[in-house]
């Protein structure tokens, strides 16, 4: 499943569904709203483009790391501290491919998928600064 959505997902059900024939490892990345003295977090996406890019990332990761299954669910809207923001579930024959594929996907999302986060505080809010300028991976 590749999705940008407001609703949370059942990670346990995703893990069960990810176990295809030949699976030897399932890696789950669960990015959550950290308690950085905020009240909530608001997430916004350029949904059509972001979804297309997540699909491309899943395809690339599948080919590059011989994955057997990929789920990417990125939530948008207002989320409380501790809620899930991003769930990536990958399955592969071996742990090395599963870990590498999961890492590739999260780093690529942070580098270039049009999604933004605003931390809401008692005094207002602040947009989270992206880790990469101009949508390209940081070098060095």
């Amino acid at each position, binding site marked *: 499943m590749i999705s940008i959505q407001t609703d949370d997902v059942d990670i346990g059900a995703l893990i069960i569904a990810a176990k295809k024939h030949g699976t030897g490892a399932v890696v789950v990345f669960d990015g959550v709203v950290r308690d950085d003295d905020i009240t909530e977090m608001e997430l916004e996406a350029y949904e059509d483009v972001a979804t297309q890019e997540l699909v491309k990332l899943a395809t690339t990761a599948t080919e590059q790391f011989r994955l057997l299954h990929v789920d990417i669910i990125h939530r948008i809207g207002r989320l409380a501290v501790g809620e899930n923001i*991003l769930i990536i579930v990958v399955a592969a024959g071996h742990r090395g491919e599963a870990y590498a594929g999961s890492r590739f996907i999260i780093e690529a999302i*942070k580098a270039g998928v049009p*999604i933004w986060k605003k931390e809401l505080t008692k005094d207002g809010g602040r947009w989270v600064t992206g880790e*990469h300028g101009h949508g390209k991976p940081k070098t060095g």
Partner: protein
Amino acid sequence: MSVKIRFFARFRELLGSDIMTDVAAGTMFTPLITTVAKKNPEGYTAIFDEKGAFREFVILMKNGKRIEIADAAKTPVVDGDEIAVFPPVAGG
């Protein structure tokens, strides 16, 4: 002819989003965004520098595809185009 301009994140807060605007034939990407952004001085300075050039971190898209800042001034917009302007992404 008309095009849709979409700002996101801080730019959306300052300038709005899903802005439908009529444009003349031959209109280029950069002057179109300049005109729309000038409706809010804070929005304009968030996107453009003191020389009127796109700030280097600004990301531009036309119909879902990236437009390099260097090419924006010579990129025409046509009827039905969707233009997007946004700051660096911060998902995940």
